[in-house]
C-alpha cells in the first residue's frame, strides 16, 4: 500500500469530503494560501476557492462561534485552530454553545462541525504552544473527541468526523505531521468508539492515545526482549470510549497502563484507569497504572522539556514492575 504523511492524510480527507458535500467548508487563520503554518492544508484553496477555504483574522472565539451558527443552519464547517493551546480561547463557544445546542433544544438543533487542532510537546515551543488539552473537552457532554495516532487514523477519523452530525474535536499530534504510514487509495471511514488493537499480547495491556501509541509500541518492543508480551490498544476516540475492547483485553492480561500526553492529574488517564478498575477489578493482578505528562507547564529548555512526557523506556519500566509483582510495596 502507498505510504503518505499524516499531513497529507488530513489534507486528502478534507478534500474528499469537500468534493462529496458542498456544505463542507474550512475556516481558520492562514488556511488558504499559506495552508496553515504546518502546511497541512496546502493546495485546498486552489481546488475549492476562497469561498470555501476561508482565511480569518486572529479571532478564535469569533470564528468558532461563527462555525456553530453555520452548523446550525445547514453548513458543515471544519474549523482550524492553529494550536491546541488556543482551545482555552474558544471554550465558551465550544462547550457552552456547540456542545449544548442539541440537548438544550430537545434535539431540534444540531451542530455538525469539526474543530481540528493539535497536541504534543518536545517541539521547543514552550508553555503556550505545547499543551495536550483533550481532557478538557472530553469532560463536556455533547462533544466527541478523536485522537488519531497515524496517517491512516488521521484520514479515517477526519472523514468520519466531517460526516458526524455532532460537534467533533480532533487533536492531531503536531510532531507526527511528517510521519508516513500506509493509507489505502480507496475511500474509508473509521467508526467512532471502536478501539484499535495495535498489537496483541498476553501479559499487560498498554492503552495509549495519539502520540503515545508509538511510545507504547516501542515500549512493547523493549518488553518483548524481556519476554513480556504487551497488548497495545489505541482507543481512537476518547468520547465515545470503547470500554469493551479495553476491558476484554485487561480481563485477559490482568494488568494495564494508561499512557497519554495530557497532564496526568485530572486528565484522561484517571478516567480510563477508573473504568477498568470498576469493571474488571477482580481480574486485576496489579493496580492499573497511569502515565501522563508531568503536572508542570511545558518548559522551553530542551533539557527540561524531554523530562515531562512519557518515554518508551519509562513505560517499559513500569510495565516490568507490574508484571513482576513489584508494585505491592508502592500500594
Amino acid at each position, binding site marked *: 500500500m502507498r505510504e503518505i504523511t499524516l499531513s497529507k492524510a488530513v489534507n486528502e480527507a478534507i478534500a474528499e469530503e469537500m468534493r462529496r458535500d458542498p456544505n463542507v467548508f474550512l475556516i481558520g487563520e492562514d488556511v488558504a494560501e499559506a495552508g496553515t503554518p504546518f502546511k497541512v492544508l496546502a493546495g485546498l484553496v486552489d481546488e475549492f476557492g476562497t469561498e470555501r477555504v476561508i482565511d480569518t483574522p486572529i479571532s478564535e472565539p469569533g470564528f468558532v462561534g461563527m462555525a456553530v451558527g453555520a*452548523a446550525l443552519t445547514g453548513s458543515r464547517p471544519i474549523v482550524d485552530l492553529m494550536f491546541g493551546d488556543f482551545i482555552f480561547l474558544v471554550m465558551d463557544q465550544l462547550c457552552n454553545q456547540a456542545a449544548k445546542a442539541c440537548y438544550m433544544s*430537545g434535539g431540534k438543533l444540531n451542530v455538525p462541525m469539526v474543530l481540528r487542532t493539535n497536541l504534543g510537546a518536545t517541539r521547543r515551543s514552550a508553555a503556550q504552544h505545547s499543551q495536550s488539552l483533550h481532557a478538557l473537552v472530553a469532560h463536556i457532554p455533547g462533544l466527541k473527541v478523536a485522537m488519531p495516532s497515524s496517517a491512516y487514523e488521521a484520514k479515517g477519523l477526519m472523514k468520519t468526523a466531517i460526516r458526524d*452530525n455532532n460537534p467533533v474535536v480532533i487533536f492531531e499530534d503536531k510532531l507526527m505531521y511528517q510521519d508516513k504510514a500506509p493509507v489505502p487509495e480507496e475511500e474509508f471511514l473509521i467508526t467512532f468508539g471502536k478501539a484499535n488493537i495495535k498489537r496483541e499480547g498476553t501479559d499487560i495491556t498498554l492503552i495509549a492515545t495519539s502520540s503515545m501509541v508509538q511510545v507504547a509500541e516501542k515500549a512493547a518492543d523493549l518488553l518483548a526482549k524481556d519476554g513480556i508480551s504487551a497488548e497495545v490498544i489505541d482507543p481512537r476516540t476518547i468520547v465515545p470510549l470503547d470500554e469493551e475492547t479495553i476491558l476484554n483485553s485487561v480481563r485477559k492480561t490482568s494488568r494495564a497502563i494508561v499512557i497519554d500526553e495530557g497532564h496526568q492529574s485530572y486528565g484522561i488517564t484517571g478516567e480510563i484507569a477508573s473504568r477498568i478498575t470498576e469493571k474488571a477489578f477482580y481480574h486485576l493482578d496489579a493496580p492499573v497504572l497511569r502515565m501522563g505528562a508531568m503536572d508542570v507547564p511545558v518548559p522551553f529548555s530542551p533539557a527540561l522539556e524531554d523530562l515531562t512526557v512519557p518515554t518508551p523506556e519509562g513505560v517499559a519500566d513500569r510495565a516490568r514492575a507490574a508484571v513482576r509483582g513489584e508494585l505491592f510495596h508502592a500500594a
Partner: protein
Amino acid sequence: MAAKAAAKTGAKPKGNAEDYLRMYRQMVRIRAFEDQANQLYLSAKMPGLTHMYSGQEAVAVGICEALTDDDKITSTHRGHGHCVAKGAEFKAMFCELLGKAEGYCRGKGGSMHIADQSHGNLGANAIVGGSMGIATGAALSAKLRGTDEVTVCFFGDGATAQGLWYEVMNMAALWKLPVIYACENNGYSEYTKTAEIAAGSLTARAEAFGIEAHKVDGQDVLAVNELTQKLVARARKGEGPFFIELATYRYHGHHVGDINREYYRAKDEETEWKSTRDPILNFGKWLTEQGVASEDDLAAIGAEVKADAEAAVAYAEAAAYPPENEVDMHVYVDSPELNAALRGQPAA
C-alpha cells in the same frame, strides 16, 4: 393629533391595516405572555426564574415583522419577546417555561434557551453576547449556501462589553455578511446603568469597522419596522452588515425576582417610561387616530390574546413532564448517513 402622532412615530402609514393590526396584536401577545409568566413566578409555579421583555415589545415586533420564516434570529436571556415575534405559539412556550415535554425544547431548555427552529429562531442564550458568533455564522452560511436569508442578532447594551462582538463585526464587515446587529439599549445591564459600563459611543464602535450604524426609537414599532425593512432589503443584496441601536426600557426588574430595585433605578423613571413611552399604548392611540381600528377593536384584541394566554398557561400546567428516560437523550443526535456508509464498508 394624528399628524402629531405620525410625526412622533416617525413613519407614515404606508403598510396596510392588516399589517398594522398584526403588529399591534403581536406586541399585545408579548405583553400578555410576560404578564402570565410573571404570575407563574409570583405564585411559585415557575421553576427557576426568568427575565421579562415587557416594555421592549416594539423592538422585537418591529424587527421580526420585517423578516420571513427563512430569516434567522438569535435571542438572549430576555428572549420571550423575540420568540413570540418570530412566530412561536403560546402553548409550546409555556410548556417550555414549566419544563414540560410539549415545550419547544421538550422542557430541556427553559426560558433562557427557548428556540423555535421552524420559524428561524436559533434560540435564546444565557451567555450574554453568546449568540453573536452564532448569528454571524448563520449569515455566513446563508451566503455560502447561496440563499438571500438575513440574520438578526438581538442583544442588550450590556452585551456590547463582550469582546466577541468586535471579532464578529470585523469578519461580517470584511465579508459583507447579511447580518443585522440589533442592540436593545434599555439603559441597564442587571443592576448597573449603561453609562457606567460603556465608554464612548455604541454606534461609533460599529462604524469603526466600516459598518453602517443607525439609532432608532425602540418604543416606536413603525419606525423600527420601517428602518429594518430597508436594511433587510439591502442586506439581501449584499450591502450588509448593519448595526441598529434601539432605545428602549424594561418595565420589570432585571429578572422576576428583582423587586426592590430603587437602589439602582428610580421609581419615577419607570413611571415616566410606562406612562409616556409605552409602545403598545402609543401605537394603539395612533391606530385609532388614523382610523385603522376603534378602541373597541383594540380592546377585543387584548381580551382575545389574554384568553389565549390563560388557556395556554392552563394547558401547560396540566401537561406532562418529560419521562425520566429523556434525561440522557439528545446529548448527541444520530448520523444516519454516516452510519449507513460505515455499514457499507468492507470489514477492516
